[in-house]
Each structure stands twice: as structure tokens, then as C-alpha cells.
């Protein structure tokens, strides 16, 4: 056990954890930031996606010891034009069904729109290929990303 300080959603948060603890557990169990979901624990599903220094990261496959000074953003802390556009598009399209995968879907969609202003269907498939949805909301995910890109002027 060690005291680890993480920069999460703009604030410093200290917690007592083993350095080998997945960031996901630190977020969910220690800091009660439960918007980030556990789906597989082995980087297969994307449900646990957060940003570290703005880059999408599977928090299940990142031990807290490797986070360092990285600034973590969880679904609770997203902001900026891409986040707003994605949230609006998700609401307008009624994307979620059970909702379990959707935090990760939204994080990946934001990451995609930061990387490409106007993704094609293929670009969406490639970027979102690591985010599984058991409810298969994929049709609407694709449509909502196109909507968000349009709203961003892409």
C-alpha cells in the first residue's frame, strides 16, 4: 500500500492503494467515480475508457503506478466542444439502451472527433472497434458521431 496522488477531473485526489491496482478500481472503488464501467478487465471492451492527458486510455489496463502526473478525465469530468457535441448528439439520437457501455462509447467518440473532424463510416468503425455494446446500439452510435461532427462544423 502506498499513498498515491492522482489528478482527476482537475482536482488532486489522494488514495491508499497498491501501485499495481488498475486505475479503474481506484476510480470506482476508492474515489466512487462509478461512471466509468468495468466490462472485461483486460482491454477488450472499452467500457472503462478515460482520458490521460487527453488521450483515450483503458483504465483497466493501466496500473496507478504508471499514471504519474498524467491528468485523468473521466466521464464525469468531460468538457469542451467535442464533449458537448457528442453529448447533444447522443441525447438527440437516443443512443443508449441498457447504458452500460455508453460511458466508454462517449469517451471514444470524443477522442475520435478530436483526432478527425469529419470521420467517415470506416473511420468510425476503426476508432470505435474497441468499444463493445451488447445491446448493439452501433447504428445510432455511428449516426450520432456523424451528427456531432456536423455540429462541430466538420
Amino acid at each position, binding site marked *: 500500500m502506498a499513498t498515491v496522488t492522482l489528478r482527476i477531473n482537475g482536482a488532486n485526489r489522494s488514495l491508499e492503494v497498491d501501485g499495481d491496482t488498475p486505475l479503474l478500481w481506484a476510480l470506482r472503488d476508492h474515489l466512487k467515480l462509478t461512471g466509468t464501467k468495468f466490462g472485461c478487465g*483486460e482491454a477488450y471492451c472499452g467500457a472503462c475508457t478515460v482520458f490521460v492527458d487527453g488521450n483515450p486510455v483503458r483504465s483497466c489496463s493501466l496500473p496507478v503506478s504508471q499514471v504519474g502526473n498524467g491528468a485523468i478525465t473521466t466521464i464525469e469530468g468531460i468538457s469542451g466542444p467535442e464533449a458537448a457535441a457528442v453529448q447533444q448528439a447522443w441525447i438527440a439520437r437516443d443512443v443508449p439502451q441498457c447504458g452500460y457501455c455508453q460511458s466508454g462509447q462517449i469517451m471514444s467518440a470524443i477522442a475520435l472527433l478530436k483526432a478527425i473532424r469529419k470521420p467517415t463510416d470506416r473511420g468510425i468503425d*476503426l476508432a470505435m472497434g474497441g468499444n*463493445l455494446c451488447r445491446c448493439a446500439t452501433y447504428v445510432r452510435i455511428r449516426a450520432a458521431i456523424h451528427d456531432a461532427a456536423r455540429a462541430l462544423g466538420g
Partner: protein
Amino acid sequence: MLRVPSVADMTLVRLLLSVFGLSACLVAAAFGQSPPSDAVARSVALFREAGKVLQHPRCLNCHPVGDRPTQNDTMRPHISRVVRGADGHGPPGLPCSACHHAANYDAAHVPGHTDWHLAPASMAWAGKSLGAICVQIKDPARNGGRDMAALLRHVSEDSLVGWAWSPGAGRTSAPGTQAEFGAVMRAWAESGAHCPPE
């Protein structure tokens, strides 16, 4: 034909290398075979030895033919469904670094390295014959623009190549060590860098 020792026993490789350093005749004595007919056979044998590494799943998985890497010793398609992207670091929005961090993380069974990425498409090896890989690996147009010296440095010093010998729990390591692999490749280069038939 020269008999090649099993790469599973790298001490034999070391023996082979040191013996080559002395005399080809001693090799024949060591392995009880007729002497190698020429330097070409010896060179080819060395490359076959290196091939045990080059064609190991630890290497082939990230030298895929096509856009999607493979995984595990079974070399099944990579899950998640990531592709190489423009620079081998994954497509926009799903970089390799989303899952692969600075070091192996056994708790999540995810391997890691600070520069985790795929070999360029021009360096695709999976499914190819060793002879084809050999011709390819010497061709600067298909080996990342490397001359032989740079190629030898790459295989013996590059730390992502070196990951193949410390791949984390649950993955078989490439045979031998990176230093031994580098030595075999060097001996092959010095013997004329001849290739097995394609």
C-alpha cells in the same frame, strides 16, 4: 545439407557460432555430418536459425499481413479490433497506447512498451516463407530503409524487438535471448547474408 541445431537449445547455437568462428570442418565433426559444401549453405543455415525467432508468434503478431494484428501463440486476430493506422500506432481515436502502456501489466494480461506499435505493412511477415522474409528483410525498401548495419542494430538493440524475450506472464518468449538472436543475425550477415529458397 548442413544440419541445424534446434533453437530450443540455444547453447547449441552458441556452440555453432563459436565453431563457425574456428572452422567449418569442426562443425561437421561436432554434428557428425558431411562438411558444408559451401559458405552459402552455412549462411542459409544461420538464417534458418534466426527464423526461429523471426517466425515466432511474438514477432509475427505485430508483423501482420493485412491491417489487423494478431494475438497470442495461436495468432488469432487481435481483440479489440484494432488496425495499424497510418503510422503503425493505430487509427485515429484508437491508438495502440489506449491499451498498451509503458510496461507489461500482468494483472490485465496486457503487454506494454513505451512505443508499442505495428511494423509497417512493407515489413509484413505473417504467413510468408522464411525465404521470402529473408529477401524482404535485406531490402531497404521493405525493412524500414535499413542497410545491414542498421538492420543488425535494430534486431539486437531495439527495445520493442527485445520485448519478445520479456513478453509478460502467459506468453511464450521468443527462443534464446535478444543478444543471441543478434549474434546469429550478425553471423548470417558476415557469411554473405544468403537466403533460403522462397
